[in-house]
């Protein structure tokens, strides 16, 4: 774990390199929650939203890494930026990248066809839970940036 103090007024940064395996998911969720509770003043419901959004981002990163042969897998990098009313978490994988615009929207939930989709709920969830959600193609993979502010969403 690296912890570095940013420039004055730039807030704190904490970065973790985490093995791309599902058994580390609960740990990432717990640590990022603790980091946000310690380093920001986000209200509890927003911390709950962050916990779920980070879980979804990390799960997607693991999936991307696991599509590669064992020897090529890289740790997932989780970076937190902290301000009193603002937490940004970036989750980076080297899993080859994808085009979020190419995702097929799910059928409406009232239609029986909706039940064909057991996957693909993560990105819509992240969109609902965050104030800003950005996907960047970076290096050999994807960086997902989740921004949550103190502002309570309905």
């Amino acid at each position, binding site marked *: 774990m690296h912890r570095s103090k940013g420039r004055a007024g730039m807030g704190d940064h904490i970065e973790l390199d985490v093995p791309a395996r599902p*058994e580390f998911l609960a740990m990432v969720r717990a640590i990022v929650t603790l980091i946000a509770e310690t380093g920001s003043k986000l209200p509890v419901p927003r911390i709950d939203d962050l916990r*779920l959004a980070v*879980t979804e981002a990390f799960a997607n990163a693991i999936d991307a890494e696991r599509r590669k042969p064992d020897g090529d897998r890289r740790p997932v990098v989780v970076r937190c930026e902290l301000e009193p009313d603002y937490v940004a978490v970036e989750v980076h994988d080297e899993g080859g990248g994808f085009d979020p615009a190419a995702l097929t929207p799910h059928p409406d*939930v009232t239609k029986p066809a909706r*039940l064909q989709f*057991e*996957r693909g*709920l*993560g990105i819509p*969830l992240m969109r609902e839970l965050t104030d800003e959600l950005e996907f960047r193609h970076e290096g050999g993979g994807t960086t997902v940036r989740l921004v949550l502010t103190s502002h309570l969403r309905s």
Partner: protein
Amino acid sequence: MATAPGLRERLHGLLAEETQRLIVDLDDVGFLDSTALGVLVGALKRARGEGGDVRIVCTQPRVRKVFEITRLDSAFDLFDTVDEAVRGAQE
């Protein structure tokens, strides 16, 4: 995500051997992510395909919210207690 394969195996095991009507009590579940939700959707699809149902017991706002924002609260029937879910299942 880490516990989802076990959940999938258990739900599909029950649907294969016991019944097509399941009540899943999530009240002791502290956290629900999209992977777990996907497993529940898979179980619902299988149960309804054979004339059954999956009913969810869930009072925790944190967990209920996940159903609401994915709008899956209109695919599943959500209940406050197991008793209500059982009664709902008999209607």
